């Protein structure tokens, strides 16, 4: 019985972590204007293309980051669960 409780806790934590990832993406999306105007660096850093590289920083960089937030959230959540489980096993 105890084992199942632990497992359902883990499942809850897994979905919670995934939801946090998606929420971060949501905040990112809703406030993209703020992120755009406050980026203090050039994401490419190559002088000769910086001029028209604006389109990369404005949109494509955000596309990529958004995609990776989505893609990486579940595996990161799974890794966190595995690490917690591993730590628990060691304590036992």
């Amino acid at each position, binding site marked *: 019985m105890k084992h199942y409780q632990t497992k359902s806790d883990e499942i809850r934590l897994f979905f919670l972590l995934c939801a946090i990832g998606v929420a971060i993406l949501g905040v990112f999306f809703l406030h993209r204007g703020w992120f755009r105007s406050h980026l203090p660096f*050039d994401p490419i850093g190559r002088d000769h293309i910086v001029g028209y590289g*604006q389109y*990369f920083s404005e949109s494509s960089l955000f596309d990529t980051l958004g995609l990776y937030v989505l893609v990486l959230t579940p595996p990161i959540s799974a890794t966190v669960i595995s690490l917690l489980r591993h730590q628990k096993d060691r304590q036992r």
Partner: protein
Amino acid sequence: MNKRLKLLLPFVLLFLGVWVVVLLSPISHCTLWEGFGFDAQNIFAWKYGAVNGAVPIRDFFYPYGLLSYYKDTNLVLTYIQSLFVPIHILLISLLFTRLTGSRAKGIASGVALFFFVLLFSDLESFQRYGSALSVLIAFVLWKTKSPIKSFVLGVLSSLLFTTITDQGVLAVLVLAVTSCIIYILEKRLSWRKHLPIKIGAHYVIGVGVGLLPLFLWFIHTSSATTFMKSMYYLSTLVTTGESSFLPFAFHPENLLVFLPLFGAIMLMSYATVFHNQHRLSSLEQMLFGVIVLTVFLEQKSLIRSISGSIVFLGPLLMMLSTQWFLDRKKYREASLVVGMFTIIAVSLLYMTFSRVVARVERFAQTLRHPNPRVCSMEVIQQALQKFPSSKALTSALPKDTRIYSFPADPILYPLFSSPLPPYFTTYEASPRFAQYEIIDWIKKRDIDTVIINTANIEMEGIQHAVRAPVLLEFLLKNYCPTRQVERYLLLNRCTTEPDFASFTNIAPVYAGSLLQAHLGEIPKKEWLMKKDKLAEITMNYPADTQDLFIFVQDSEPSTTLVLKTKNEAAVVTIEHCMEGCVIHVSNLPLFFFPQPLELIDAPSTTTIRFMRAKDITTMW
């Protein structure tokens, strides 16, 4: 009937059925697509290049691989290329036959996906983007523990690189990453276990052997260096291209891919932690592979949106996820996945109904010419008659005029039997070195006439004058406007000193568009990154604009400046200049022709200073 034949017959019939549909479709015909967008024009200009013996990559930028280029000159190659789609569908059917254990379900899956492609995407995209998927399916179906099979997969990947360049690269990446995921999750990746290394080494050798035909072609056409250069060029184009923020937020097709993608990633992450098994099933290996493939393919959205072309990956991910639930008798979850996907697909069908109808109509039209045909100059000339401005332009200019088309009407080269430039559109000419290459080409080829499409001001939100200022400056300073034919402005070599007024006289609307510059955040980035290359100067009106830079600071998020000369005024819009912005005045079309700046009209919140750059070659 032989039992083996009886088993294979449905697959053979499926293969032949799909092949017939492909042979009837426009991808097997030398035709000019309706719509005359720059994509359709590019494809047609490449056909013209192939017929005239031009070498792709060496003579002009060509990213799609040798097969799709040379098939236009050879019927055998046309038939070989037409086999790609039937092979993809056959492999998908075989995969689902293996996963479901039912031949009927396997064939039904292949047929369903094929109809999905016909409705929501197109055969040409599926032919290309389904290729790496086919290599992945071969990898999963084969259960590659044998080094020999791994070698064959390597050869297949690099042959794919020769025929469809990007898909070959993708196949190698997807197989490498998927194998690593499988080995890590099955805890088989260890230096003490030699099998993965042996398999990997055989794969690499296979890739090397498969590249031999391409190397022979390099030697034959002397195009090895240009090929390397084109690979570097692609990386530069990524940074100068444009796409909308978060593709799935704006393109309904992307919902069909992103939601199943995210769902599949959730499912596999969940399965890894809560269904811990020693070995991954073929289904799980395939799901990991398709996830990796989809994530890699989405990277192309950095250059241009790819939503419509890879939409078939959505149902594939959905079918694999559903099967994972069905295998574990979780019928509720399986029906939830199918239900959600059906709702999105039906909504998409509703939203894009007109496009679906147009697709079906286009396909129906091709039934009038059911036989595939290779391109010849005669066929090309016939197809050119469909182009609306062809009569007006050919009556205005002699047939063999050497032309250059700005910004993007490559169909005009076959229309005048003119040589093809290194890049057909200003979009491809975004990197500055590409603009210089076109200028060199214009000088070497002694181009008689420049044809500017005055109705084509911007592409995907960016003005051509902003994207390719170096090229436009060269054109406007060396070619003077003579007359306008429909939407096209014809320019011949200047016999008098060029000036902006001649554009205003002959094409006032186009000249007006050149006076509006939407620079967005270019000036902000210029200031942030290059302030140490700029030095303030003192200058009074009227100011010499040669290599002049204007520093602007404004507390408002958007600033509009009016730069006045004696007779004209350029309106410049810039954004987010709270910390500072810098505008390169000589890059505005009005100042291509040196003339003093009389005054700048700016909002009261704005601070303006004049600057000079130590080295203008690194500035916009």
